[in-house]
């Protein structure tokens, strides 16, 4: 019997806790650098020990993203990627036996254009577990959250070091699955060092919620993973994955991705 959507995320964090491990959650833009890349490298990411996979739905105007992810979105759109393609990519990974949580990450307009209810139903059907929308704060998220809930999916909220206690509390009230903690004030992209604000920020979030925390933005090395792992249950790695994918010849991409996840995990 297939695992129920929604519980896959909880099961993953339970497993991580038991193993005493920091989850590594790679982000890949669907359709970058080629239309079929996610389908080819997804199983390799899991073989390397990815705890979850974030599937990026490309958008023409990704205003929370730095140059690397922005470029990947542009290439993906040039390759003809749509919301439907992204749903198909999730379905494809499930057919290939990928059993880790699949989280869509995409800006609001393409989802709105697709239809929120239709999108939520399609996510569940495709085997996705949650959705992150960088430009949808809690106050504006009601319609999407309700649609996803109806289909057993989580709407994952983001918080940032600049978030006020009131904003953290508001997210804590509405959040399910996990909370995505943006490590810095800035756009996505690999950085040399993690922000010194991170420990204080994470402890403020912990005061409001018992949900697992995933730290993202700026994570690109095993040292970052180890450091963030002292504070949070998992890390998200986007730009560093995208950059490697773009630099690696097609046939070597699965091996490279498997090795990179192992490397980040320190395994």
């Amino acid at each position, binding site marked *: 019997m297939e695992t129920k959507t929604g519980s896959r995320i909880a099961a993953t964090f339970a497993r991580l806790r038991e193993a005493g491990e920091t989850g590594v959650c790679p982000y890949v833009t669907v359709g970058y650098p080629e239309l079929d890349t996610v389908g080819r490298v997804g199983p390799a990411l899991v073989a390397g020990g990815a705890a979850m996979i974030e599937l990026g739905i490309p958008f023409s*105007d990704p205003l929370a993203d730095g140059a690397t992810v922005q470029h990947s979105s542009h290439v993906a*759109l040039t390759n003809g990627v749509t919301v439907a393609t992204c749903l198909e990519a999730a379905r494809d990974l499930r057919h290939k036996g990928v059993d880790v949580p699949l989280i869509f990450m995409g800006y*609001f307009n*393409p989802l709105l254009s697709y239809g929120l209810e239709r999108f939520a139903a399609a996510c569940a059907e495709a085997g996705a577990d949650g959705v992150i929308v960088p430009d949808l704060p809690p*106050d504006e998220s009601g319609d999407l959250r309700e649609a996803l809930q109806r289909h057993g999916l989580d709407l994952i909220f983001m918080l940032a070091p600049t978030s006020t206690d009131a904003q953290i509390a508001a997210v804590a009230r509405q959040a399910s699955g996990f909370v995505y903690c943006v490590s810095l*004030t*800035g756009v996505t992209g690999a950085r040399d060092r993690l922000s010194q604000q991170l420990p204080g920020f994470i402890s403020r979030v912990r005061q409001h919620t018992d949900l697992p925390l995933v730290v993202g933005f700026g994570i690109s090395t095993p040292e970052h993973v180890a450091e963030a792992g002292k504070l949070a249950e998992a890390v998200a790695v986007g730009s560093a994955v995208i950059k490697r994918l773009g630099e690696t010849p097609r046939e070597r991409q699965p091996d490279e991705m498997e090795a990179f996840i192992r490397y980040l995990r320190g395994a």
Partner: protein
Amino acid sequence: MTSMTTGRPPAAALPDERGRFGQFGGTYAPVTLLPAIEELREAYDAARRDPEFQAELERLLATYVGRPTALYYAESLSREIGGAQIYLKREDLAHTGAHKINNALGQGLLAKRMGKPRVIAETGAGQHGVATATVCAMLGLECVVYMGEVDIARQSLNVFRMKLLGAEVRPVGTGSRTLKDAMNEAIRDWVTNVETTYYLIGSVAGMHPYPLMVRDFQSVIGRETRRQILEQAGRLPNAVVACVGGGSNAMGIFHPFVDDPGVELHGAEAAGLGIESGKHAATLSAGRVGVLHGSRSYVLQDDDGQIIEAHSIAAGLDYPGVGPEHSYLKDTGRATYHPITDAEALEGFKLLCRTEGIIPALESAHAVALGARLAADRSPDDIIVINLSGRGDKDMHTLAEALGVAL
């Protein structure tokens, strides 16, 4: 409370607390920005009610910007058209040559009041960039202006002006390399430098409270127009006409007339090479409801919700979004929006140069073209006010090329 005549809330009651104009507006912003947006809301709310802030703004509008700008009866143009009496609200006479200074001054004073030493802005035609650079120079603030590479090439005079005024102009080479992409980059900068930086948005677009705040600062245009036309003609106009890109000059002149049901409101959108060509910026005429740059409004987008690149001969109208209040005015039927092509705008441009000795901005030429068309079907008892949002000096290169003249 609703208005007796329209059955809708009076104009001043919108947006609501969440920044909504009906279904439009709101705050669709990256999480990093939310505290800054809240800080801005609170600061603006306080400034709005602070008599000292308002007095300082009024003093500088009068002594620095040169307000009130004239309301000019365009007798020669009216005679040529042979229809309604046409008046021009002369925002081209404001300091820096366009209405943009009204808003830049208001927000510049607010940035100063909030203790933000660094101001960023985005610009299309450059008029907003020039106005922001001007105000920053006057108030002693650091200024960075994002501008698409396409716009930098066609607005080189304004780029030079901004640099002379001490601003750093950062070229944007992504996407369509026009206003939309400049706005993306400005938001990215703001996300990164949010603690020290004030983002001075140039139109009634973006997340709440920008559509409200920019409208408030630009409403001085409509308030003056109302008073001036009552003085000069003894009554309100039959119609008010303005060009709409993001829509700030239009909102500025429309707003004080919204609760006057006898005054028609008409917006001229850039239809570029024609709506059917796909190369246009007529968001309200040809867009769908979506979310761009922090608010829900009409947006030019494809079937998959990807933003379509806009086109207009006028850099300042070359934007695939529009202020949410315009979307509300369109859907409630209070305002009507008309597509005006590049070619029609050029005719409007030449018409005004020839009949009145006024060289309008290419943006404003869209309003002139629409105003002339509307006036032609009316009786001489009717009055039409056209908002002449800016002057055309900045457009000489574009115009020379369009008219086949080597400079």
